[in-house]
Structures are given as structure tokens and as C-alpha cells.
């Protein structure tokens, strides 16, 4: 029998729709001790920037009801290190490696993309939605114009397909999604973290040095699902659903409202095997429902 989970995203074949979200999976090595990474549909790298970054100072994590706030601030070894040292290993994986790219200004985004032209990464996730850095990041993702502008330039510079990662911290995510589509994005991923805050009342202080940071985890799933539904109704390019996915039912819900692939983030931390369990759950579902392909349920609730 053929693989009912086989999926195509913007022309790229995925053995299944389950990928791991940027920043929650390192560059894969850490989880390679738990299972064979080739079981994944794909994996998104930690957010890469032109220059290496140490990330934010101070406390970086704070637990909330069914959620986690993080203020990592794009700690990463820089794009050259990725190209020279990390990619040679990642490229041997049959899963789709998605390079997540950030920048502090237009030039640093574009130069990072240019350097990625040296390698054959199948898909780029343009992160215009990180709430944890002072410059760049989310700023590009909160208006249709700036999102479209950066996307168009990224598409022009890069020889790789560009998927844009959207921020939920907006009034109208649909207008931004459409702007990115028109600017040439081959796909969209959403949502990045929701801007949030934590206070330590006993110490009378704000937890994060940066004051605000990004909330994710199961708490945000209902919000992510709503936005994926809104966007899938409005665009023709494929969407990766992200945000609080904890179970195969969550993954399925995302696909029923139109997502082509999904990304698992925080739940990797709680259970390293979670993406594999989600794949198993989806496989069983296809069997029980007699689906030849998971595509049969995609978008049925649009």
C-alpha cells in the first residue's frame, strides 16, 4: 500500500506532514538520540541570522498555564557556520530541512539568503515574526506592506522557495498572508509566538530583560487554529499550521481547516517522541477511516 501520509508542499515532497518548529528542535542532533530523524516529514532549523548571536541575557523561559514564554532572542551560530558545518550533515537526511532565516534589517536578511544560495536547502522559512529581538523580527510581519516588500526582495535574491512565517500579533493576518502570497511566497507558516509578559510579584520584577517575550504551547492552539483557518480560506499557496499542537487530533484539526503540513514546537520539550506519536496517530486515523491519502480530509472545514 502507498503511504497515506505522503504530502506535497509547494511542489516539495514530504513523507508525512509532520515537521518540527524552528527553535524547538535545534538542528536536529539533540533529538537524533531518541529516534531516527528520517521518520519526520521535515524539520525547521533554529532561526539563523547573518552573524552569530548569543541571544538574550537573563531568564529565558517562564511557564504559564498550558504555555511557555520564551525569550531566547535568536541565539544561533550564524549563517556561515550553518552552511559550512551543519548543512553537510543535515543534507544527508531524507526529511525536508527547512532553513529558518531572520535578520535585523533588510540587508542582513538578504545577505543571509544569498549565502544560503550556496547550498541546496529545499525550503526557506522567512521569519518576519520573532517577538524576541529588538530590531527586525516581528516589525516586518505586522504590516502587509513591509511583509510584502521584504518577501518580494527575498524571493528575488534567493534561488530557493520562500515560505513566510507569520506573526499572530496583528489585527488582520489575512491581509498580511495575501500580501506575502502576491509577493511571491510559495507557502506560509503560522503562527509564531504571541507577545506576552511575565511578572515575578514576590521579587517585584519583570521576568524577562526584554520585558515582552513570546508565548506558545497548548494554550495558544485555539488561536493558531483560527488564524490558519482564516488564512487558508484566503490564499492559494500551502500553509503549515503551527502553534500548540500536542496531539494527532490537533494536527488533524489544522489540516481539516486547510493546513498542508504542521509543525510541532513546545511539545517536543515535554515529550521528545511527540512528533512520532503524531505521525502514528495520523497513520492510524487514515487506516481506520479508510483514507488512501490524508489529503482527503485537507480543508474539509474550509
Amino acid at each position, binding site marked *: 500500500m502507498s503511504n497515506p501520509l505522503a504530502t506535497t508542499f509547494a511542489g516539495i515532497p514530504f513523507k508525512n506532514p509532520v515537521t518540527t518548529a524552528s527553535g524547538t528542535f535545534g538542528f536536529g542532533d539533540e533529538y537524533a538520540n531518541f529516534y531516527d530523524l528520517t521518520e519526520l516529514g521535515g524539520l525547521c532549523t533554529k532561526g539563523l541570522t547573518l552573524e552569530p548571536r548569543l541571544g538574550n541575557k537573563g531568564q529565558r523561559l517562564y511557564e504559564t498555564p498550558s504555555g511557555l514564554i520564551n525569550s531566547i532572542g535568536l*541565539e544561533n551560530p550564524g549563517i556561515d557556520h550553518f552552511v559550512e558545518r551543519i548543512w553537510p550533515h543535515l543534507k544527508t537526511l531524507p526529511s525536508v530541512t527547512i532553513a529558518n532565516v531572520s535578520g535585523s534589517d533588510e540587508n542582513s536578511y538578504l545577505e543571509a539568503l544569498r549565502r544560503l544560495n550556496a547550498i541546496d536547502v529545499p525550503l526557506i522559512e522567512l521569519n518576519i515574526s520573532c517577538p524576541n529581538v529588538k530590531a527586525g523580527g516581528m516589525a516586518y510581519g505586522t504590516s502587509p506592506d513591509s511583509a510584502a516588500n521584504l518577501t518580494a526582495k527575498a524571493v528575488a535574491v534567493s534561488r530557493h522557495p520562500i515560505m513566510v512565517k507569520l506573526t499572530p500579533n496583528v489585527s488582520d493576518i489575512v491581509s498580511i498572508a495575501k500580501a506575502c502570497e502576491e509577493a511571491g511566497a510559495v507557502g506560509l507558516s503560522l503562527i509564531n509566538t504571541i507577545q506576552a509578559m511575565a511578572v515575578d510579584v514576590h521579587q517585584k520584577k519583570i521576568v524577562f530583560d526584554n520585558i515582552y517575550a513570546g508565548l506558545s504551547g497548548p494554550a495558544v492552539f485555539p488561536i493558531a487554529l483560527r488564524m490558519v483557518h482564516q488564512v487558508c480560506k484566503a490564499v492559494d499557496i500551502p500553509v503549515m499550521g503551527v502553534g500548540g499542537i500536542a496531539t494527532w487530533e490537533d494536527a488533524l484539526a489544522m489540516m481539516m481547516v486547510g493546513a498542508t503540513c504542521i509543525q510541532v514546537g513546545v511539545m517536543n520539550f515535554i515529550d521528545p517522541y511527540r512528533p512520532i506519536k503524531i505521525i502514528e496517530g495520523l497513520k492510524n486515523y487514515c487506516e481506520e477511516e479508510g483514507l488512501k491519502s490524508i489529503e482527503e480530509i485537507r480543508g474539509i472545514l474550509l
Partner: protein
Amino acid sequence: MAIILSNEYVATDIYHMKVAYTGNVAPGQFFMVRTWLKEPLLSRPLSVFNYNEDVIEFLYQKVGEGTRLLKNAKAGERIELQGPYGQGFPITRSNYVAVGGGIGIAPLYFACKRIKDKYPRKHLTVYLGFSDQPYMVEAFEKIADDVHVDVGGRITDLVQVSKDDVVITCGPEIMMAALCRQIPEENTVYVSLEEHMACGVGACLGCSREGAQGKNVRICKDGPVFNREVIYR
């Protein structure tokens, strides 16, 4: 899923749990632990207090919600253990000095036991500092050559090391930093650090901090035990 064998009160807010577990565990390593299903979201890092004969032991302090749920767990109930994770205390043929502060004594006990198991003829001195109540002191007395205890003062004031002594320490970071300042540069010192952790395996960079060489270290994966040179200038 592992089964809790016992979970007993030791002193105010301090508990001692035994869990059925078989595997390779090094002193200084830790597990991500949970006895609950969904809330709180994250598992909790706990160092190995002791391990032998298929029983792993934790010594922990009730400080918040997670450790409160831990202390309420009963023998026979299930506990999820992920690990062991991280780099433990290197154990070499040397005389050792172990300096623990408060609940920081937890990983030191297992380290001390392994030191004496491996090199019974080497000398092991233990310093234990407590802010108000001492606990588990006898356990250390059974294995170490000397045990010094301080309650309410500064344990670092008592510590004396000789040339070639290897020092291992765990406790409040302010104590460990002070200790590192007072111990001659020639001595090797291993510190065990703490940070808020989400993944415990090096993937989230939540526990990452700047080390002495201007490069970041991840407490969970590159540590929690570090040669002091990696951390303090």
C-alpha cells in the same frame, strides 16, 4: 514510565524519593521528571541523589507547584523520567573535596559514593552548609573521610583544600562563585549549575548562558557540571 518505590519526608520541605529504574547513570546527571499529566506544562529537572541496584533516588525540596505534586506522589504511583541527561562530575584518581549548599547536596552524595567506590584509598572531605536545618548528614558521614557541617553561617569559610585536591560543588550560585574565588587556580573545581529548563537536551537554548570564554554554554547539555574555567573568569 517508572514506579515510585517510596517518597518520604526528610526535613521541612525536603523529601527523598526512590524509583525503580535501570540504566547507566553518572553522578551529576539529572532527569526531567513529572508525576502529572498536563499541568504544569514542563517537566522538572532533578539530579540523581543515588543510584544502585535498579533503584534511582532523588532528594528534593518543595519550592513550588511541581515539587508539591512530586511530594504528594505515593509509593506505587507512576512517574515519568526522561534522562539521564547532561555531563556529570568527572571522577579521577585524586583526593576530593565536596562542597554542598542546601539542596545542592543532592548530586554530591552520588558523586561521593562513586568516588569512594572507585578509589577507596583516596581522601574525601565533605562540607555541607545549611541555612537552618541540616539533613542527610549521616549518609555522607558513612562514606566520606571527613564531614564538616555548617548551619546558618557561610560554609565557604570552613573549606580548606590542599594542592591536587579536586573540588566538586553544588549549591546556590553565590556560594559556588565565592568558593571559586577562594580556591587556588591550580585546583580543579567542578561546579554544578542550575537554570530554568524546558527541553533538558540542548534543543531550546532556554538554559543557555554566557560562559567565561564569551561563548554560550547550555546548562542541560554542556553541563550541568562544568569545569569552573568554562564559567567563571
